[in-house]
């Protein structure tokens, strides 16, 4: 790769890191949505991994990414595609993304949704699931019996 191409690729990753997910308060890079970036001259191709196929925000994310790419100096055209060859799993979340979601009051499972939930406010395990279906497709709702706070927990698609 030439140094110009490498610089452009760095600029592309920087701009991608500034694109926020419409439903979670973190960048799409921290959420692990970016599968790969290919730079070919002035053309950039980005492949994204959807968290949920049914997520109504997919089209919004695609258009945000496309607009962000086109704002980078040196990019003439951009293609943004979702890829289905790899599932989105919790280990695609960055450490920073995880911390930001937790700070936002969302409980985030360490590895699997099936593990015991933890209250994000008091750390108690004495919690009860209210519904697997929360305010968005990717969140379930719970009640903490220790501190009596309701909370939401990140819900990835079920383990196959």
């Amino acid at each position, binding site marked *: 790769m030439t140094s110009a191409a490498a610089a452009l690729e760095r600029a592309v990753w920087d701009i991608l890191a500034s694109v926020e997910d419409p439903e979670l308060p973190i960048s799409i890079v921290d959420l692990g949505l970016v599968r790969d970036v290919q730079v070919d001259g002035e053309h950039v191709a980005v492949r994204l991994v*959807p968290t*949920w*196929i*049914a*997520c*109504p925000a997919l089209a919004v994310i695609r258009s945000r990414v496309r607009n962000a790419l086109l704002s980078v100096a040196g990019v003439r055209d951009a293609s943004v*595609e979702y*890829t*289905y*060859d*790899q*599932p989105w799993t919790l280990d695609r979340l960055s450490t920073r993304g995880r911390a930001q979601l937790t700070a936002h009051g969302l409980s985030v499972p360490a590895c699997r949704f099936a593990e015991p939930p933890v209250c994000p406010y008091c750390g108690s395990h004495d919690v009860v699931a*209210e*519904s*697997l*279906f*929360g*305010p968005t*497709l990717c969140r379930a*709702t719970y009640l903490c019996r220790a501190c009596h706070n309701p909370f939401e927990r990140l*819900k990835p*698609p*079920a*383990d*196959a």
Partner: protein
Amino acid sequence: MPGTLAAIADPAVREAFREWLLRMADDELVIGHRHSEWTGVGPDIESDVAMSSIAQEELGHARALYEQIAEDEGGDADRLAFGRAAGEYRHAALLEQENEGWEYSIVRLVLYETFEVARLRLVAASGQEPVAGLAQLLTREERYHALFGETWLRRLAGGAPDGPERIQAAVDKAWPDALGLFEATPADALLQHAGVLRTSPGAECDAWVEAVRPVLEGCGLRIPTVTAREGGRRGVHTPAFEELLAQMTEVWRSDPEARW
């Protein structure tokens, strides 16, 4: 990247697989609309939100499947979803029936989800990319629907005093239409012969009965002995679909070229 259909060299196999994709997408679209009718009127707020989320997911799955077809035909997914005559839809009658009570909707959900997961596994094993990968991802999302449906089924079947009777009546009503999910068409035979799908509708149906049997019998419910009501896979629908189609396409028909 070429789409799933463009990658199939044999035109007859391509057409048969298109028929299969369309059928999957139509099933999801129609059941998604029926589930969405519970929005605002579910038995409690959590179930209302859950059924609405399930509806939203089925519609999202339909969109992804229509895109698979549209991509190779230069068309658009919305036109496939909303721009066809009733006889061009390939969903089974089970999905179009009206929501006659929560118990019917729950029974239908359980019967359909069991079928849907098995069908997605078939497609995931078909080797037809990228839709095989898509099917693999969709099975992960359907899992939560089955959990919700089975939890409610147990709750209703245990409800005194008339719970067991009412839920059995719903099973009896849904059963002939559910068997219609497995209506055999020339497309099925062709795909099986070509090695794309490793089963026949008959074998698929037998496996489905064995999968739903422990769920139903575990709730004290009987498996009815009735024959299938077919037609949906060939585009023959009941009057319930005419009404549903008119309603669900109303906005799209007002301006098919509109961009959102």
